[in-house]
C-alpha cells in the first residue's frame, strides 16, 4: 500500500488520486464501513470536528485587529487530510476551503517534504492564486498535524487582508495589470517553525505594507486557530486511535461526495441549462493604466451547466473571453472556490459538508481564458469582478432546476458584484495607512421564487454577510459618514423584486491626502440578470464626488446637507446642496487624492428580480414605498401599481385602478411586441454588417478566436460566417 501513513506524503497523494480514478470513489472507499457499523458515532465525530473549526475561528477573530475579520467575518478555517482534502470547515468565507486544499497539494507535489521540510510546528503561508487562493489579499496559513510522528492531517485558516501593499492601497488592486503590481506575495512559504512566526517574515510584512498591523495580527490569529484545531484533533485521536482517525476522516469525504450526488438527484432535473452575463471594463482616460491592451473591454460570460443522470454537475465556460492586462483574471483555484462556496449555500445545507461536494462536480475552464490563463504573470487582484457575476449565473441555472423540480423555496436569482472601496494615504491620526472598506459585504440579493430578495444583506463569497458598524469604520479611516441609505428602485423589478442596495456618503475629514480607489465596478452593461420574467438590477452606479465643498460652512450655519446623491440620475442632490467642484466618474475610481472637506459617495448593487412585474402584490409594494425601497413613481410606471395616500400621507394601494392599469399595460405589450422571427430577420442584417460598437465587435472576435463551439453556434444561429464578419476586429 503506497498510501500507508508512513509512506512519503507525495506517494500517498498520488495513490489517493489513483484510487479515485480507478474506483470513482474518494481514496478508493467503495463502502462506508465505519458509517454503516456505527452511524451515530460517525455523525458525532464529524460534528465535533465542525465544532473545533467554528470555535477556532471565533477565537481567532478576537485576536485580529482588522475590522474585516472582526466585524464582517472575512475568515474561514478547516481541517484537512494529510493529502490536503477538506474534512470539516467553519462558517465564514467558505470559498477558501478548496483553495487551501490546492495550496497543500501544491506543496506536496513540489517536494516540500524534502525541502523545506514538513515538520511538527511548521507554519506555511500562501497568497499566490496560481498555487491556491483567489486574490493577493486572501492570505492562508496551514500547519501540519502530526501524531506519534505520523502526518495525520492539516489545519488551515484564511483571512482576507485589508491591505496587501499593491500599486493602489487595499487588496482588490484595481490598477494591477500584471502580478508585479498586486502587492506582497508569499508563495507557499515556510513562515514559521515551532508554532511561532519567523521574525524575518514579520519584518518583511511590516516593511512592505501600508498598514501591517492588520496582516501581522491576522497571521497570529490564523496560527492560533490552526494550533487550536491541531490540539483538538490530537485529543480526539487520543480517544479514537490513529488508525480509526485516518480511516474515518476519509470516509467523511466520500460520504460528502455521495451526499452531493444524492442531493442533486433529489433537488434538480437532469439536462442542459444555459445562461450568460456580461461585464464592462472601462479604463479609457483613467490615470495610471499602462497601454498594454484595449482600454475598454466587454466580457461575455456564457455558462452551460449539465446535470447528469448520476447527479454530477458539470459547468462549462466555453466561449468566454481571453485573459487580459487587467486585475480581473481568475485562476482555476479561484474558479473552484467560487463553485465550492456556491454549492455550500445552495445544496449542502445538511449532511457532511467538505471537499466531497466539490468532487461531485466538474469545471471546464477553457485554456487561455480569464478562467484559466495560460500565463502565470497575469494579475488576479480583482478576480471577484468576473467570478461573482459568473457564479450568479450558476445560481440561476441551479434555480431553474429547483423550480422545475418543485423546490421553489430554494430558487434564488443569485449573487451580484458588490463594488469595493479602498483607501490609503494619511489617516486622521496623522499616520500612514491603507485599508479596504468591507461594508460591500452586504449587497442586495437576487429575488427568490417565493419572496423578495434580501435587502443590503447578502454577498456570494460570505453567506454570513455583514456591512459592519459605521463607528468601527470611522475609527479606521479619515472619513465620516454623512449618509448610509437604502437606494430606492435598486432591486431588479419582478413579481418578487431583487434585494435593494445601499449607498454611503462620506465627508473626508482630518487629512490632506486620501487616495480613494474602487473596483468590481462594471460599466455600461448589467453584470446580473433576472429570472422567469424578472429584470436585472440596475448597473453599477457612477461615483459622485465634490471637491473643496462648502460642507463645513453649511454645517456651521446649520443649513441642510445632502446625505445621498438623490434620485435624479441627471442632477444629483450634491449639486443642489453643495458648492464646489463636482465629479461624476464611471467605472473604477482612480483619481487625484482627496482632502478634508471633500464629499464622496459609493453605491453597492441590488439583486435581480423574479417573475412578471405585473403580478407583484400591491400591498407589499405600498410597504416598499413607505419604507424607501421603491418610489411611488416606479411602482406605477414599472409595476403598474396605483398608490394613493391615506390621511397620514402613507401610501395605500388602489386595487381597481391597479387592475385597470395592468390590463392596459398588458395590452400595450402585445401592441409593441413583434414575433421573434421578424426581429431576428432585421437583426441578422445588423450582424452581417457587424454594425456594433467596437467593444462589442472585439468581444465576438475574441470569443471566436478561442472557441470553435462559440463560433459554430453563432454561425448557426445567424446563418453567417462569424469569423469573416469580425475579421477586422480579430487583429
Amino acid at each position, binding site marked *: 500500500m503506497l498510501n500507508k501513513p508512513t509512506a512519503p506524503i507525495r506517494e500517498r497523494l498520488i495513490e489517493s488520486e489513483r484510487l479515485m480514478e480507478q474506483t470513482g470513489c474518494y481514496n478508493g472507499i467503495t463502502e462506508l464501513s465505519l458509517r454503516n457499523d456505527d452511524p451515530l458515532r460517525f455523525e458525532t465525530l464529524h460534528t465535533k470536528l465542525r465544532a473545533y473549526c467554528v470555535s477556532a475561528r471565533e477565537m481567532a477573530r478576537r485576536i485580529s485587529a482588522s475590522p474585516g475579520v472582526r466585524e464582517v467575518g472575512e475568515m474561514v478555517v478547516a481541517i484537512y487530510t494529510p493529502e490536503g482534502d477538506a474534512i470539516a470547515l467553519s462558517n465564514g468565507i467558505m470559498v477558501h476551503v478548496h483553495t487551501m486544499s490546492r495550496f497543500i497539494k501544491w506543496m506536496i507535489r513540489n517536494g516540500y517534504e524534502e525541502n523545506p521540510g514538513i515538520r511538527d510546528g511548521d507554519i506555511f503561508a500562501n497568497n499566490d492564486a496560481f498555487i491556491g487562493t483567489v486574490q493577493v489579499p486572501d492570505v492562508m496559513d496551514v500547519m501540519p498535524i502530526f501524531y506519534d510522528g505520523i502526518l495525520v492531517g492539516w489545519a488551515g485558516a484564511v483571512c482576507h487582508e485589508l491591505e496587501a501593499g499593491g500599486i493602489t492601497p487595499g487588496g482588490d488592486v484595481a490598477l494591477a495589470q500584471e502580478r508585479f503590481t498586486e502587492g506582497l506575495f508569499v508563495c507557499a512559504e515556510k513562515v514559521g517553525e515551532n508554532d511561532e512566526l519567523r521574525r524575518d517574515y514579520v519584518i518583511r510584512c511590516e516593511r512592505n505594507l501600508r498598514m501591517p498591523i492588520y496582516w501581522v495580527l491576522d497571521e497570529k490569529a490564523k496560527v492560533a486557530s490552526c494550533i487550536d484545531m491541531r490540539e483538538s484533533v490530537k485529543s480526539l485521536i487520543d480517544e479514537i486511535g490513529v488508525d480509526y482517525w485516518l480511516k474515518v476522516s476519509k470516509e467523511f469525504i466520500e460520504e460528502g461526495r455521495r451526499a452531493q450526488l444524492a442531493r442533486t438527484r433529489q433537488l434538480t432535473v437532469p439536462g442542459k441549462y444555459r445562461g450568460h452575463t456580461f461585464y464592462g471594463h472601462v479604463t479609457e482616460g483613467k490615470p495610471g493604466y499602462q497601454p498594454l491592451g484595449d482600454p475598454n473591454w466587454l466580457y461575455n460570460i456564457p455558462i452551460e451547466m449539465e446535470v447528469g443522470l448520476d447527479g454530477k454537475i458539470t459547468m462549462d465556460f466555453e466561449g468566454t473571453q481571453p485573459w487580459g492586462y487587467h486585475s480581473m483574471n481568475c485562476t482555476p483555484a479561484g474558479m473552484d472556490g467560487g463553485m465550492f462556496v456556491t454549492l455550500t449555500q445552495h445544496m449542502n445545507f445538511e449532511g457532511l459538508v467538505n471537499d466531497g461536494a466539490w468532487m461531485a462536480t466538474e469545471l471546464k475552464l477553457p485554456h487561455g481564458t480569464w478562467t484559466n490563463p495560460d500565463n502565470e504573470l497575469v494579475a488576479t487582484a480583482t478576480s471577484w469582478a468576473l467570478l461573482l457575476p459568473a457564479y450568479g449565473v450558476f445560481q440561476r441555472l441551479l434555480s431553474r432546476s429547483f423550480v422545475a423540480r418543485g423546490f421553489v*423555496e430554494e430558487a434564488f436569482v443569485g449573487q451580484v458584484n458588490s463594488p469595493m472601496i479602498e483607501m490609503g494615504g494619511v489617516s486622521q491620526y496623522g499616520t500612514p495607512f491603507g485599508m479596504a472598506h468591507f461594508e460591500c459585504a452586504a449587497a442586495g440579493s437576487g429575488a427568490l421564487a417565493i419572496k423578495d430578495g434580501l435587502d443590503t444583506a447578502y454577498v456570494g463569497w460570505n453567506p454570513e454577510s455583514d456591512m459592519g458598524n459605521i463607528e468601527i469604520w470611522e475609527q479606521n479611516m479619515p472619513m465620516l459618514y454623512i449618509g448610509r441609505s437604502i437606494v430606492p428602485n435598486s432591486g431588479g423589478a419582478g413579481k418578487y423584486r431583487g434585494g435593494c442596495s445601499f449607498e454611503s456618503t462620506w465627508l473626508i475629514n482630518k487629512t490632506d491626502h486620501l487616495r480613494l480607489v474602487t473596483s468590481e465596478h462594471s460599466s455600461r452593461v448589467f453584470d446580473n440578470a433576472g429570472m422567469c420574467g424578472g429584470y436585472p438590477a440596475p448597473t453599477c452606479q457612477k461615483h459622485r464626488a465634490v471637491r473643496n465643498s462648502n460642507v463645513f460652512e453649511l454645517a456651521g450655519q446649520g443649513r441642510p446637507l445632502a446625505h445621498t446623491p438623490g434620485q435624479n440620475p441627471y442632477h444629483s442632490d450634491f449639486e443642489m446642496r453643495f458648492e464646489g467642484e463636482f465629479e461624476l466618474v464611471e467605472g473604477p475610481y482612480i483619481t487625484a487624492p482627496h482632502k478634508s472637506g471633500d464629499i464622496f459617495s459609493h453605491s453597492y448593487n441590488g439583486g435581480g428580480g423574479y417573475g412578471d412585474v405585473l403580478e407583484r402584490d400591491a400591498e407589499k409594494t405600498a410597504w416598499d414605498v413607505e419604507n424607501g425601497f421603491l418610489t411611488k413613481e416606479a411602482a406605477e410606471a414599472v409595476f403598474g401599481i396605483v398608490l394613493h395616500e391615506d390621511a397620514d400621507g402613507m401610501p395605500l394601494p388602489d386595487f381597481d385602478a391597479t387592475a385597470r392599469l395592468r390590463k392596459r399595460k398588458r395590452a400595450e405589450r402585445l401592441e409593441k*411586441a413583434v414575433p421573434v422571427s421578424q426581429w431576428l430577420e432585421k437583426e441578422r442584417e445588423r450582424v452581417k454588417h457587424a454594425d456594433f460598437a467596437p467593444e462589442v465587435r472585439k468581444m465576438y472576435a475574441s470569443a471566436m478566436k478561442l472557441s470553435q463551439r462559440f463560433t459554430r453556434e453563432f454561425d448557426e444561429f*445567424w446563418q453567417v460566417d462569424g469569423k469573416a464578419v469580425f475579421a477586422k476586429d480579430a487583429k
Partner: protein
Amino acid sequence: MTSYSKEVIADLVAGKLPWPQTRRIMSAYKDDDRFFKYIQVLQDRVGWNDPILLPVSEHLFICDSPEGRVTKCECGHSFGDYRKNWKLSASIIVRDTEEALREIYPTSDIPDPQWMEIREFICPQCGTLHEVEAAAPGYPIVHDFEPDLEGFYREWLGRPLE
C-alpha cells in the same frame, strides 16, 4: 420521511405560506414526494387538461398534448415541440434605447444601449412576460433549458414516460 399536504405546497408555490412555516420547510429534510404534488398544484392552476410533465418557468410547462410534448403557456398558448427553444416562437420587445431602458430604470444609471439591450420574451396570446435577457447586441438568443425528460422520469422518478 418529510411530507407536506398538497395545500401547503400550493401556498408555498403561491408565496402565501407564512414565513415561519416556509423557513421550517427550508431548514427541514426535503420531502421526496414533492414533485408530483407540485405537478398537481400546477395542473389545478392551469385552465387546460393536457398533463403537465415538467415546469420550465413560472408560467411555462412542458405538457403532453395531442400534438405531442410541447411547451405551453399557462394561458394555453403552445410554443411547439419542447425540444426547440420556445423563445423563437414568442413575441419580443427589445429595449435598445436610453428612453426604453429608462422606463424600467427611472432613477438609476442605465447601460449603454450600444453595449447592451434588454429582450423581453412575451406570450403572443396573453402578454405574460416569460423571460428577460440582458445581452450585448447581436448575441444569439439563449436556449435556457433542455431537460433530459425521459431520463428524469425513468431513472430519478421511477415512472418511465409512455
